[in-house]
């Protein structure tokens, strides 16, 4: 089982990237430091190689009605050139993956979490074959490079490098500049941004141009470390941490991403039941009162010592100089202001429940 490498892997190394493993991919974790890269994204701009994300094309006569049935948002209302963030659910209402989907003329583009790519492909394949949908799925993950530009200068860079008309470019919409080349106004981050998808053959050329422009503006090349902190502060869920097959959108506190008015969709019934009976767990924000970062899987306790949940992500926010965490807790204890304990190696940490999302004003999904 070999590690998957980015098409530009050697290039990242030559730029001094410190590599690490994420969801089976060897990825740049940072080039110089997470702190510097994070602040570049907040103050000017940062450039990420996110080619590890799953990328699919869905085509066929019934593709739109299929997506309407297989995800929990009203996909049929999405106009050409626009997109949405949505969940594919299993029969129990658990999340197969959280993905962004975009509508092109005859087809849909789907971007999935890296950790759920293979699973999502099999799930789609199973549904299509079993229920005889006229839909075709093509996994183009390794045929496309995918870059993300984040930060207040991201839009200027895009407008400078690409022939963008001088108009408003709404969020969650994309433009195609040549057959294999698309730019999406979207960032999985507390900051605004754009994502650039192109055929691998064009990847290096565009990467170099982007690097040059980003550096000219005092921005930085960024790795997954900064990306994770920026998505964490915006409270976007990550597959394998906040989302997995045992977690529902209601437990995530994202009922706004469920379009109940749709006739039927996979997982609708169990979700309705959950809404009626109440969720088993609830995602909460935690401010840690101590100098340790809780990691995925650390158990949460009430002050009386009753186990009540677990941590899904923990991070140190360089902006707020605070340790923050996300976690699932028994809804009885998941009340803002409540204090819980985190069991961490060799210590216990006090954690106060605070409101979500941590960062307000980011691009909402």
């Amino acid at each position, binding site marked *: 089982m070999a590690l998957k490498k980015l098409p530009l892997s050697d290039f990242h190394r030559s730029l001094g990237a*410190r590599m*690490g493993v994420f969801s089976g991919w060897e990825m740049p*974790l*940072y080039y110089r*430091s*997470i*702190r510097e890269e994070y602040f570049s994204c907040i103050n000017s701009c940062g450039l990420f190689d996110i080619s590890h994300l799953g990328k699919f094309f869905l085509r066929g006569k019934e593709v739109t009605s299929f997506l309407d049935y297989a995800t929990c948002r009203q996909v049929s209302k999405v106009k050409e050139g626009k997109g949405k963030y949505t969940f594919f659910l299993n029969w129990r209402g658990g999340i197969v993956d959280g993905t962004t989907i975009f509508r092109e003329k005859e087809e849909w583009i789907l971007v999935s979490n890296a950790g759920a790519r293979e699973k999502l492909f099999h799930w789609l394949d199973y549904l299509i074959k079993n229920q005889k949908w006229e839909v075709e799925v093509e996994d183009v993950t390794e045929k496309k490079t995918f870059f993300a530009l984040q930060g207040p200068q991201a839009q200027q860079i895009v407008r400078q490098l690409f022939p963008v008309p001088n108009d408003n470019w709404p969020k969650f919409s994309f433009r195609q500049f040549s057959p294999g080349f698309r730019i999406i106004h979207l960032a999985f981050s507390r900051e605004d941004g754009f994502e650039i998808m192109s055929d691998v053959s064009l990847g290096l050329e565009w990467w170099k141009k982007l690097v040059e422009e980003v550096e000219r503006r005092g921005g930085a090349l960024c790795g997954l*470390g900064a990306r994770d*902190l920026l998505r964490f502060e915006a409270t976007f869920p990550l597959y394998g941490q906040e989302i997995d097959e045992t977690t529902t959108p209601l437990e995530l506190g994202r009922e706004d991403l469920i379009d109940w008015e749709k006739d039927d969709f996979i997982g609708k019934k169990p979700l309705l039941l959950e809404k009626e009976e109440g969720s088993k767990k609830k995602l909460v924000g935690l401010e840690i009162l101590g*100098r*340790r*970062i809780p*990691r995925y899987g650390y158990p949460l306790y009430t002050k009386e010592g009753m186990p009540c949940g677990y941590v899904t992500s923990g*991070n*140190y926010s360089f902006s707020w100089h605070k340790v923050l965490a996300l976690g699932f807790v028994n809804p009885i204890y998941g009340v803002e202001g409540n204090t819980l304990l985190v069991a961490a*190696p060799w210590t216990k940490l006090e954690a106060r429940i605070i409101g979500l999302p941590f960062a307000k004003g980011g691009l909402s999904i």
Partner: protein
Amino acid sequence: MNIPDGLLYTREHFWVKKEGVVICGITDYAQNELGDVVFVELPDVGKKVKKGDRIGEVESIKTVSYLYAPLSGEVIEVNKELDKKPELINQSPYGEGWICKIQPENEEEFKNLMNKEEYEAFLKTQ
């Protein structure tokens, strides 16, 4: 990878500099492995430690790791700057990012530390 000459090293990636008392810290290799350091938990001044004791911890964005005493002795000073600027460990692991000073109690223990070449060879096995 910066491995200065004239320092001694442990398998737990501590460097030790002998100047009457010893000054110690974590190596460039270790700080690079850890990534951005955000907190350093320092040992108490006056604490008697045995070689290999857990004397503190370094929390980075990626992971937590523990500091192990490179030698037995008494902790006589710690780098208080690290409380305010833990990133000094990343920026200057052998200089401003030093961790503590120890009054060693057993000269024999120096023999078990590695020199530059030995530490380099050891890193290749990691």
